[in-house]
Each structure stands twice: as structure tokens, then as C-alpha cells.
């Protein structure tokens, strides 16, 4: 610690704005969520009845909520696994000490600048029944892909768009992690023919563990929350309820209906519990502390 300046009050003044903002916009609303989840409340607040844990009971007895949980789990696992695998492979490739490879580092990270909503527009174009190239390509190999009608296709569609969008971010962080690994380790892992696979698992991956943990958490949060725009601009939860992820269900109950504020708050808390648990498990599994972001 290099404490040098003797001022006693100044540091608190410097920290105050951050702490106040966190208390007002994070802690207080989160506490309110807990309180609201115990009430039956409507938007204008003329009805406010204490109902204990009834909202949670209703949630877990509701087929549509169980459906949202299942769909979200499938979606999140698919996106996280696909995104981390593809981006790790591409980042390792782009990090090889070969002349001219620097350019790939720039050419592979640009999807980071896209929003999930724009990714939705782009993939809706690629898979449009009339003018999508991907639709034509799939038709050529005998697959009839239509996410507006088929529930399975809709989920696959969202997974593809969401994975593609997050590749840039993941590659960026893997590249930063790989930069700290000595060149000869990478070179050996890449050049050594049959042994390269084992070397990769034994030497490169352990060194990337902090990055992997960080990305595992960030990708889980991304798949659970940030993909809202992608869903809202394309499938809107459909067809039927096939892509009604937890975040979309929460939005509909909290802002599209006038009487389900309590229910929406209960959903918020369930989300919090899920995210906290997953984060905790991921930390325990890959251990060690990760500090950026």
C-alpha cells in the first residue's frame, strides 16, 4: 500500500458519489424487489395485498414459467459452450507466431461492436424464407429452416445469432489472455503434430484458466440478460412460447401487464438466485481470482 497523502476527509468525498449511486440505484431497488415479491401489486399501486410467498408458489406451479426456465437453460448452455469453443479456437489460431497474423486479431474481434438487436436483424436476413442465403444453403442440403414457424428452429436461430455476436468479445479477451503466455509454449502446441492436442490441454488451457472463468461468467450473464434485444427484435418469445426466455417473460409480466408487478419481482429474485449460484459454482470450479471487468 502506498498511502501518501494525509488528508482525512478528501478520500471519503472522492468515494461518496460512487457509493451513493450504488445505494440509490442498486441496493435500494434490489431491496424493493424483495419487498414487492411478497405482495400482490398492480402498476398504479391502488391494490397492494401482502401475500407472503404466494408469488413464488404461483411461479413454480406455472407451466409457462417452467417452460421459460427450460428454454433459458438450453439456450444459455448452447450459447456459452458454442461461443467459448469457437472463440478459443479462433483466438489460439490468431495468436500463432506467424508473420502477418496480426491482421486476424483485428478482423476477428469486430462483432464486439454490434448490439444483440442488430445481430438479430442480420441473422433474420440470412435466414429469411425468401432472400436469405443461409435458407438457400440449408435447402440445398435438404433442411427446411423456418424460425417463424418451427419452435426448434427458433431456438437454434437465437443461439446462432447470440453466439456470433459474442464471438468478438470472447476472442478479444482470449487474445489478451494468450498475450501473457510465452510464445514458445504456443508455438510448440501448434507445431508439434500429434502432440499438439495434448500440449494444448496440458499447457495452454491451464494458463488461460482465469480468462476462461471470467468469460464463463460474462457469457452466462450475456446469454441470460443481454440477449433481450435480440429476442424482442426477432422471435418475441415465439412461435408459441418456444423462445420465451426468463428475461422476456419478466419484461412481459413487469411492463406489458398491469397487475403482475409482484410476480415480476419474484422472477427478478429467482434470476438473482440463479445468477449468484452459477457464479459461485463457476468460481469454485475454476477457482483463483480473476480481476478484470
Amino acid at each position: 500500500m502506498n498511502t501518501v497523502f494525509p488528508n482525512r476527509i478528501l478520500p471519503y468525498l472522492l468515494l461518496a458519489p460512487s457509493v451513493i449511486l450504488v445505494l440509490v440505484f442498486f441496493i435500494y431497488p434490489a431491496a424493493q424487489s424483495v419487498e414487492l415479491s411478497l405482495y400482490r401489486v398492480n402498476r398504479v399501486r391502488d391494490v397492494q395485498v401482502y401475500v407472503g410467498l404466494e408469488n413464488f408458489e404461483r411461479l413454480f406451479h406455472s407451466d409457462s414459467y417452467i417452460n421459460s426456465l427450460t428454454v433459458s437453460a438450453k439456450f444459455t448452455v448452447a450459447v456459452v459452450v458454442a461461443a467459448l469453443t469457437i472463440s478459443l479456437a479462433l483466438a489460439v489460431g490468431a495468436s500463432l507466431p506467424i508473420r502477418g497474423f496480426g491482421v486476424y486479431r483485428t478482423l476477428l474481434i469486430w462483432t464486439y461492436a454490434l448490439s444483440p438487436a442488430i445481430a438479430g436483424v442480420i441473422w433474420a436476413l440470412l435466414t429469411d424464407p425468401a432472400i436469405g442465403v443461409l435458407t438457400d444453403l440449408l435447402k440445398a442440403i435438404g433442411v427446411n429452416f423456418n424460425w417463424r414457424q418451427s419452435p426448434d428452429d427458433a431456438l437454434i436461430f437465437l443461439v446462432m445469432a447470440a453466439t456470433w455476436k459474442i464471438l468478438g468479445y470472447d476472442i478479444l479477451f482470449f487474445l489478451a489472455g494468450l498475450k501473457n503466455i510465452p510464445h514458445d509454449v504456443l508455438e510448440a502446441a501448434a507445431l508439434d503434430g500429434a502432440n499438439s492436442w495434448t500440449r494444448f490441454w496440458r499447457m495452454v488451457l491451464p494458463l488461460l484458466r482465469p480468462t476462461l472463468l471470467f468469460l464463463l461468467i460474462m457469457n452466462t450473464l450475456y446469454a441470460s440478460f443481454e440477449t433481450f434485444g435480440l429476442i424482442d427484435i426477432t422471435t418475441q418469445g415465439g412461435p408459441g412460447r418456444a423462445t420465451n426466455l426468463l428475461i422476456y417473460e419478466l419484461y412481459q409480466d413487469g411492463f406489458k401487464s398491469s397487475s403482475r408487478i409482484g410476480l415480476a419481482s419474484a422472477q427478478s429474485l429467482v434470476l438473482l438466485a440463479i445468477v449468484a449460484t452459477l457464479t459461485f459454482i463457476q468460481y469454485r470450479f475454476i477457482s483463483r481470482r480473476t480481476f478484470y471487468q
Partner: protein
Amino acid sequence: MSAISASTTETAIIYEGRWRRRFYPIIMHGVMLTAVFLVTFPLIYTLILSTQGTALGSLRPGTAIVENYSDAWNRAQMDMLIRNTLIVALAVALGKIVLSIMGAYALIYFRVRGGMILLAVVMLTHLLPLPVRIVPTYDLLTDLGWVDTFKGLTIPFFASATGLLLFQQFFRTVPTDLADAARVDGAGPFRFLVSILIPVSRTNIGALFLIEFIYMWNQYLWPLIVANSARTRQVQIGIKQLVATDAVIEWGILTAGAITVIIPPLIVLLVLQRSLMSGLSASGEDF
């Protein structure tokens, strides 16, 4: 006999080594170029579509580029959208940079009683993303009269665990001599911060600006709920309106709108990606 076979193996190894050295880079360039093409193709196709007025869906660029882009611009009121989103993205990026530098400075260069607790409080923001407090936060905004205002779009985002950690970690690596020398020279805490600490933090400031600008430019859920009028509407919601205007999607115009909206964050990424890379690698050093 054995000598002969040994030398053949040796030649084989040398031969193979030479083969590897010569062709391996070429093959890997091929692999990487294919990867770049696959990742980039969706955007290229979107770009092509945005030039087509008729014969939609072919791979040949069309001639309707001017019509599509100006239609998208006018229909979405792009000048307003871009202005509004720039205000929000710049305000939040700068606000977060200032607040997190202030906080990290306090924690590293002063004696703060309960500093760890204050840090932990700010860190809690990581566990409380918007969805887990969205209904009460919206209520709070209503009570404050901030719905449909730039205040409501920016101030709730100002606190930054990311930034506080980034700068706190970086300040630890700044040599202690620097602050000692400044003090000996009679520089107060403010002058040390402004004339020494902030200039040496350029890279980290660039990195945080990049992260937060893109994050805010791409916000969707919060603006959807909070920014209802054209006065405050954000770009992503503008794109949603281009999708929703008609029963039949006008792909030429929609793709032109999408490309327009992508350009500002892409420029920021291109300009600042070096800062981000070195900022990330540096902060990753101690584990």
C-alpha cells in the same frame, strides 16, 4: 544397416521440418482467412442488401444505395437518434471514467477506514444487473420524474465496478516514487492526480471508454422502457421501429439503417482497440 536407416530417418525428419516450415504458415493463413470470411460474411451480405432496390437477395450489389440509406435516415429520424445516443454514451463513458478514477485514487493514495467495505459495496453491482431490480428502478425513476429524460438514461449507469477495479489495479502498479517525489516538490493531491496520475493512465482510460461507449450505444431494454419519445429515443429502439413499421419487412431500408447504426461503435473500436488490448493484458498480469 542401422546406420543407413538412422540417416534415412534423419533425412525424413529434416525433410518434414522443411516442409512444415514452408507450408505450415500457408495452410494456417488459409484456415484463418476462411474463419475471417465465415465470421464476416453475415455483415458483408447485409452490406450488399443495403444497396439493393430490386432483385433482393442476390450477391451482386444493387444501385439503390442512396435511396435506401436516405430512406432509412429519414424514416428512423436518424439524426435525432444518433444525437441522443451519442449524448448518453459519451455522458456515461465520461461519468464512469471520472467516478472510478476518483474512487480508485481515494482507495490507493489515502488512508480510508472501511475502504474494503466500500469497495465491496460497489462490487455488489456485479451481482445486481438491471433485470433483477428493473421494476423498482423504473418506479424510482417515476418518483424522481426522470422517465423520458437524459438523466434517467444516464445517471443510473454512472457507478462502475469495472472501472473502479481497473484503475485500482493500475494505480497499484504506478511506482510509489512518483507520488513521493510529487509530495516533496510540494504538489498537493489534486495536482498529483491531474498532472501525473491521469496522464499515465491514458491506456486504461481509453480501454474503459471503449467498453462503456459500446455498452451504452447498444443498450436496448432500459431505453425501451424509459425513453418513449422521439426526444430521447435511442438508436437500437429506432432499428426496432424500422422492423415494425410495416407488415412486410423492407430489407433494403432496414439493412441500411442497421449498417448506419453499426458505424459509430465500430469506429470507436478501431481507434481504441490497442488501448483495450494492452489495458486488458496489463490488468491480467497478476494472476
